[in-house]
């Protein structure tokens, strides 16, 4: 008796709440609109909470490593999970060096492509070549890795590395035995993978520069290249830097291709021929078979570090690219 009374009371209060809600919202139609708006809002909220929970989860998972290893974690040079020694410097070094090498190789080529596609190529060729560059970005990372193992590395070992050590062997960067696998192969694969990113963002940035500026330069008698150099590049500079940073962000976080070719040895070596290890690769290799809580936490901290660095890079890049695009939208540089 008491329970059914409570149910009736509950139903009545539900009904009252419903009629209150309806009164507030007016008619049924508004109610549907309200619901639709709420659902789309929830979906947008989902994006925000996903990002937030990634950050939070990684921070919580890496807490034990923060507590036990402290700041020395990032500067320790020895990584030996069996003896519970966790120093992440070899991974940080490998990530930074391979990514910088990739930028060094990729930026000149990407800028050339961006300039060619936005300024020089004939119209009919522009779309086709633009599409091919996009395809370069569409090839899955693991396929690049497979190609890197069986095609790129042997080629580097047999033709490029002997040449480099003949000419520049006196430099520590090009000394030591050439295996094919190693930092150089990693940098080359990364360069191939980030070129489409830098080139297509760079192309958009160059396109955002108003046409009238080029015409003015050409009217003054500049050659095509001079018009680009005088009128386009100075305005596009910050956007091009942004494009480069987007490429760098992609290089830092890239996992599969580089894991397959870099050699995966946690050592710091001055030679680009020597095997290395990156932050993303050690996650891929050790996370699913991590031994013990501290090992897991140390790996999570590497993940957190990678997350924070790539997020910051992306933010900076977007600000730079957006400035150029917004300037042109307002009709001024």
């Amino acid at each position, binding site marked *: 008796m008491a329970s059914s009374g409570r149910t009736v009371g509950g139903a009545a209060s539900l009904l009252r709440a419903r009629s209150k809600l309806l009164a507030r919202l007016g008619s049924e139609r508004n109610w549907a609109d309200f619901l*639709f708006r709420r659902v789309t809002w929830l979906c947008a909220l989902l994006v925000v909470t996903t990002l937030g929970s990634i950050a939070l989860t990684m921070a919580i998972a890496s807490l034990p490593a923060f507590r036990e290893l402290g700041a020395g974690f990032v500067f320790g040079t020895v990584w030996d999970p069996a003896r519970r020694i966790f120093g992440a410097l070899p991974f940080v070094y490998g990530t930074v060096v391979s990514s910088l090498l990739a930028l060094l190789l990729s930026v000149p080529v990407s800028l050339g492509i961006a300039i060619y596609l936005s300024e020089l190529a004939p119209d009919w060729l522009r779309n086709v070549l633009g599409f091919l560059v996009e395809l370069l970005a569409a090839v899955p990372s693991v396929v690049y890795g497979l190609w890197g193992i069986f095609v790129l590395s042997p080629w580097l070992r047999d033709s490029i590395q002997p040449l480099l050590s003949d000419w520049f062997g006196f430099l520590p960067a090009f000394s030591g035995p050439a295996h094919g696998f190693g930092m150089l192969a990693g940098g080359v694969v990364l360069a191939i993978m980030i070129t489409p990113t830098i080139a297509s963002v760079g192309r958009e940035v160059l396109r955002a520069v108003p046409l009238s500026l080029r015409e003015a330069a050409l009217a003054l008698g500049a050659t095509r290249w001079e018009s680009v150099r005088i009128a386009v590049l100075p305005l596009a500079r910050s956007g091009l830097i942004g494009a480069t940073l987007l490429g760098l962000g992609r290089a830092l976080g890239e996992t599969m291709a580089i894991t397959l070719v870099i050699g995966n040895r946690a050592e710091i070596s001055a030679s680009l021929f020597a095997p290395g290890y990156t932050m993303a690769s050690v996650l891929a290799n050790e996370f*699913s078979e991590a031994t013990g809580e501290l090992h897991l936490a140390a790996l999570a901290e590497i993940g957190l570090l990678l997350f924070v660095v790539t997020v910051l890079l*992306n933010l900076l890049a977007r600000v730079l690219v957006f400035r150029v695009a917004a300037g042109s939208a307002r009709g001024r540089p």
Partner: protein
Amino acid sequence: MRLERYAWRRLVDRAVRAGCVLSMGLALLPLCSVLYYVFSRGVGGLDLAFFSELPKPVGEPGGGMAPAITGTLKLVGLSCLFAIPPGVLAGVYLSERGETRFGRVARFAADVLSGVPSITVGLFVYAVVVTTMKHFSAFAGGIALAVLMLPTIARSTEELLKLVPEALREAALGLGVPHWRATIRVVLRTAAPGIAVGVMLAVARAAGETAPLLFTAFNNRFAAESLFEPTASLPVSIYTYALSPYEDWHRQAWSAALVLLLVVLLLNVSARLLVRHRVGGR
């Protein structure tokens, strides 16, 4: 003197043009090389066994990649299920209320999320889904891929909805159609081909992702019976086979890469054609 100077300037112009063409060629070289090797080494292994048989025990030649193929289909299907509805609706929110404070935050979050390394997404889904369910599963893998697809779909939907003329919506509202029906039946339908292109590109990217699957879907030598078991996928199989010392597995890795590449290329090319004929033509 003047002429000489002009000749020099023209020479520089030519040299820069040649440099640009050269860098174009340099970028296409690896693309051609990858396509050539994947086709020439992969095509021989594409027989019936590859598509229908289970992998043989370690080191034994023969066998196929049936579990990996069905696994990739399952993972992509699940990730579409998880990512497309919220992605499109979040895009609707961004295009309609994107200039509110929360709208800006959400757009910003989507941009940041699309730059997060895919391996980090794998760690996240491992910590949240796999540790609570206590085992690897296609379900977890689908969530990981969905997290990667979500921001891409939301942003591309937003951009496409902004292209729909305001007059169309106003006409619908003027006829007395409720706001939500006007959005779904008029605005979303007008933009549908473009949204489909965005979704296809997101799917193409997700289908080739390996890193987020390593600790979520994991791998399985047998066909997974349910969505809550470890599940093989083409990218993870390519990865493990490429690292194995067996000649026959390398051959199968190339074949799997060919299948994966064909799917990805097909999605990209058809998206491109759709853009040209349906959206660009208007």
